[in-house]
């Protein structure tokens, strides 16, 4: 992938990993602004299921995306242990509702594999690659694409498991 080739020149990249619906995901640490506990959201009318609503992040109205629902595993039953990963790219900020944040990894660029060219589904359009750490497969997410997908006409029905 073009993006991976580009970063290869820069050597290693750091990722924050988190889990949602039993899978491990990773996001470039540079895109993560903060991690905070779950707070109830204000739902947005006529929004797709995976958009849980908005919260007040120190004066910024932050839309929260339910990672589990986004992947098509249904809406997360939230409790106080759930966390919101705040992602910032350029001037856009969104929150990602996940089960827990696990680790920080620094894989060799060579270890990152392109995602298998499967049929298009809910995940593939924002997956950047795959990396194996301690025999666990971790999916690296492209946060930019994830954000862009929020603006598109969503077809939520197809995402629900």
């Amino acid at each position: 992938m073009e993006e991976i080739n580009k970063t290869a020149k820069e050597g290693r990249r750091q990722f924050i990993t988190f889990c949602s619906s039993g899978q491990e995901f990773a996001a470039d640490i540079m895109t993560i602004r903060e991690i905070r506990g779950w707070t109830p959201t204000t739902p947005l009318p006529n929004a797709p299921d995976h958009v849980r609503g908005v919260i007040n992040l120190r004066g910024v109205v932050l839309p929260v995306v339910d990672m589990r629902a986004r992947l098509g595993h249904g809406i997360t039953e939230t409790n106080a242990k759930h966390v919101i990963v705040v992602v910032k790219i350029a001037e856009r900020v969104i929150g990602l509702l996940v089960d827990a944040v696990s680790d920080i990894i620094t894989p060799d660029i060579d270890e990152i594999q392109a995602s298998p060219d499967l049929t298009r589904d809910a995940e593939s359009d924002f997956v950047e690659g795959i990396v194996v750490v301690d025999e666990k497969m971790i999916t690296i997410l492209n946060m930019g694409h994830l954000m862009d997908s929020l603006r598109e006409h969503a077809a939520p029905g197809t995402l629900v498991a």
Partner: protein
Amino acid sequence: MDPMESIKITYFEECAELLVAMEEGLIAMENGEADDEIINAVFRAVHSIKGGGGAFGFEALVSFAHIFETVLDRIRSGELVPEPDVIKCLLRAGDLISDHVNAARSGSDAGIDDEEVKDELRELSGEASEEAGADDFEGLDFAPMQFDLGESGPEVKAESVWSIHFAPHASLYSKANEPYLILRELAVLGDMAVEADLSRLPPLSLLEPEEAYIAWNIVLRGDITRTAIEEAFEFAAEDCDLVIELLPPDNDELPALPQLPDLPEPVYPAVPDLPASGLADAMPAAVAVSDALKSPEQQKDATAETAQKSAASQSIRVDLDKVDRLVNLAGELVITQAMLAQSVQEAGLRSTSKLGAGLVEFEHLLRELQESVMAIRTQPVKSVFQRMPRLVRELAVQTGKQVRLVVEGESTEVDKTVIDRIGEPLTHMIRNAIDHGLEPTEARIAAGKPAEGTVTLSAEHRSGRIVIEIADDGAGINRVRVRDKAIEKGLIPASAVLSDEETDNLIFMPGFSTASTISNISGRGVGMDVVRRSIVELGGRISIVSTPGSGSRFVLTLPLTLAVLDGMVVAVGDQTYVLPLSHIIESMKLGKSDIHSYGREWELLDVRGSFVPVVRIGNLLGIEGSCHKDANGVAILVESESTGRFAVIVDAILGQRQVVIKSFENNYRHIEGVAAATILGNGRVALILDIDGLALLRRAQRESATPVELKATGS
């Protein structure tokens, strides 16, 4: 960012300010206040625009500014009398130089038809006669170099010897000016001898490190004009004592030179007099000369005066984002404080306790902080009003009418968000006032009015809002014609009985005018409905008072800010929403039988005998737990610009308050029916509903047979 690029941005920001100063000066001159200070200010503005433009290679701009400057210089030196015709030409030149700056900013440094005005300026600059004559006007690529010869004007040319006393103030250094660079620039002009004047230097024990003690006496010889010397001091002139004098031409020797060997000797502060120098001897002779050339001294006084003036209103340029961040933080603090106060109360602490008293004090300070921060965002309406004189000039030419624009209250301050959006409606209304309001000159004379029509644009604060008035002394609204036109367009039945006021207000009706968009400024008869809509979008109102024969007056009332909105906080199910108060007409408790079914989809509310459509927010926005029993609900009667009146059904009214508007479109996307969000006192986000959007959403829902499946439509 490329450093050059950022300097360029600064240059254009400065240009904007300089253009304003220039325009103000020119208008003052037009009103007959052409004193030295004003002429100087205009000259300086044009000169600085030219200087910066030259550095970036904007040739068209520089060549135009140069001619303009030459003419201004002649006025400054009293050679050219600023008669009305001259000023008219200057005003047009001012418009063109602003076009040139805009073109340079947008990167298209060409294509402005300035030849006509250039020719006029050339004529005024008096250079045409000195040069080869009329033939020069035909050459389009008139080289700017030729004007340099003429620029010296009355100044002495050929070999001349100048004595310059240059004593910087501390402020010169604090503005990062460097005397060495100025001296180096002077050295380029001719043979130069410099002597440092250390007489003011105190003993080391008394020396203030940031004070300026050293002055320089300079003797400059060569083919030099006063203007050239003044240019070298251009950026320093306000921060130093500067005396430039022409030494008698028979002074063959450079007088300072013999004294140079003295320089290395330390000059002790104990010696109070000027150190012996050739210059001191030369001075008295120079004074006589300078008395004869009085004008430079006067110029200097004027400069000093302006410097004082500008010091009085000091300002800094701040990125708007930084201010917004500050506004956000202040808002957050207020919310946090409210939550804190609530926790303290819940903990059972009385408000008389130390903690409670501290919190009250804290709250007062926060309110003050928030108000101060909001005040940073306000600007005088001047930044919009200053665009109007040019518009009026252009329209006067286009329509062949004589128009005078009177501007009042331009220092009235209003939030930047409002400033940014009132420009276009105002432009339209002024255009209308001149185009339709004012009669042609002959008609005015026939009616016994002055030939020159007057359009007044004024602004003032009134009870927490800004009121802007646009008045003309024209014929007023022709009610018969308005009525006929409304009937012709089918807006009112031919039999309608209307009061004068109602007739006047017909011009705001959609469809009354043919033009449909606000951007269509070239069209005549611009739609007042469009103007009205954009004013209402700003949360404002517009009204008209017209007196046949003596003119019309449009009155706009606008909120002082768009960052804050007066809203009604309502509950629907377990959610809280805010409805903009400006759209609400009234609210009423629902009785059991107030709502009637109408057709398959609609319900109508009986409001004292008239029926309005009902919109149930709970159903429309898919909110769970919304109350469906009408008996407990509240109907809020609202008016939408696009669909007229309808009733919004909510569960309860929680209160009325000012809320800070927060956009989420950047982080998410537009949602139909939602204007923005806000943060309530409990820290939760509440959505501000968009009344027009709700009406459209309701209509769309009705059209799609299964309302429940209506999903986010994006935009």
